[in-house]
């Protein structure tokens, strides 16, 4: 049945946490999060065993006893500035079954939970989201605003498997360039990429596919040897990147072979 066409938020029952809801909550979360969600052990750790947890921190909307949406909050003091700690409600793990979306259950939860949160001296509602959800939902519908943070994520590839995945993405982007399309008209091309500290890979580009492998061909069209640090500095786009590349070229840390063959191929094409 499609709940969207016939239901209003007031038609649903709401329940706070009880152990019998765990399976259904996790099922809802798993169905809602594209990147996947954990299991019941993870849910229990994250919510039910959290210091300060109360059953009211979980709100489940049910229809005929079946959970169709769940919302979670954690009431915590947030340290905002020296001398300023405010009790805040951190929201997360919001899930609505796809056939019950668009009828205002999140808004209903926001309104319904407000009094209870204020009674707990909550001043702010905070949460984590991505740009798309913020602009589509949180800003226009809930009046939330993005905070200026200095939080940054630093990441580094450690395995050749992850490196291959990145190279494959890079190859896909490269393949869409007009120059590469011209080159690929004459058949597939193999780029040998040796990133220092990793097993070398062959990036094989054809007009309609990209493939990255550690099984190396005998005669790649182009050979590139580059330190990982140089790749990272280029990705970071810092002003130091240019110096990093120039320094690596001069010192021989970056090596490129087969450029003439590429020119010849271009000339023939």
């Amino acid at each position, binding site marked *: 049945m499609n709940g969207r066409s016939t239901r209003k938020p007031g038609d649903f029952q709401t329940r706070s946490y009880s152990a019998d809801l765990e399976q259904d909550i996790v099922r809802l979360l798993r169905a809602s999060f594209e990147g996947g969600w954990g299991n019941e052990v993870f849910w229990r750790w994250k919510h039910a065993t959290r210091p300060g947890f109360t059953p009211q921190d979980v709100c489940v909307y049910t229809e005929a006893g079946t959970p169709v949406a769940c919302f979670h909050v*954690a009431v915590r003091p947030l340290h905002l500035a020296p001398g*300023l700690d405010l009790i805040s409600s951190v929201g997360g793990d919001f899930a609505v079954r796809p056939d019950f979306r668009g009828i205002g259950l999140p808004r209903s939860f926001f309104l319904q939970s407000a009094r209870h949160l204020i009674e707990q001296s909550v001043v702010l509602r905070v949460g*984590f989201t991505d*740009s798309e959800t913020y602009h589509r939902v949180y800003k226009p519908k809930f*009046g939330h605003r993005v905070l*200026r*943070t200095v939080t*940054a994520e630093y990441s*580094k590839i450690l395995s050749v498997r992850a490196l291959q995945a990145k190279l494959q993405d890079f190859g896909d982007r490269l393949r869409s360039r007009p120059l590469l399309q011209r080159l690929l008209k004459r058949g597939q091309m193999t780029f040998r990429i040796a990133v220092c500290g990793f097993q070398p890979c062959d990036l094989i580009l054809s007009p309609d596919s990209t493939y990255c492998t550690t099984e190396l061909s005998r005669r790649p069209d182009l050979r590139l040897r580059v330190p990982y640090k140089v790749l990272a500095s280029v990705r970071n786009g810092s002003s130091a990147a240019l110096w990093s590349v120039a320094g690596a070229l001069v010192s021989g840390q970056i090596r490129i072979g087969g450029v003439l063959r590429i020119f010849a191929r271009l000339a023939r094409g």
Partner: protein
Amino acid sequence: MPRTAEYWLWTTLARPGVDAADVLVLEDDAEIVGYTALWGEGRVLDFVVDPDQPPRKRRALARQLINAAEQRAQERGFDMLRFTLPISDQLLDTALRNSGYIIKQSEFFILGLLNPQALLQALADLRAARLTSLRIRSFVFELSPGQGPLLLTNRLILNLDPSLRVEDISDAVEYPTHCVIRIEVCSLAELVFCGRSIDSLLRQSQLQITPAASLSDARTLLGALVVDTPWYIPASDRF
């Protein structure tokens, strides 16, 4: 989040997927000078190097801890290692960049004002010293919800005398009008937390101050309410 032993035990050691060996401690003369904890898929929950160490030593300690974390991540078979750190810590930022880390800031930490009365009270208490010179001693905030789904109070009064107090006067028929500040709750959040300037709000009519003679005092008050400390949210505090 204020760190207590109970909170740390829950957020780190009791977290499914964290092994005691994923918690790495750096010691110097039997004193802990650094600490990090790894979680599934190579996420670093916490990374701390004693900020009181001299810069050169702190740099060396940071490098040592990064290397140890990478080694542990490789033992666990993680494909990537991801640190969440304040970009404002230049020493750690440089140490990670020099170790070949790629940096990005893509996550949004969002905020909505639920209780403006409690917020104004907390901020006014904190900045009371900056308000002593104000000529006007009572300010009325007329709030509208803007894009927010609800507004529990639509009029507040901030009295500086006899004691600093913010009260809900939504139902009051008469109230002092020495300075009336009309603002949407979302705009108030922007002003306090998001670096939005008073001038910009005034220009776009998202903030109105009457009478005009009270503008200077209102500016001083609103300026005192701004929280400009940079926010940092460690991975272990994510929800």
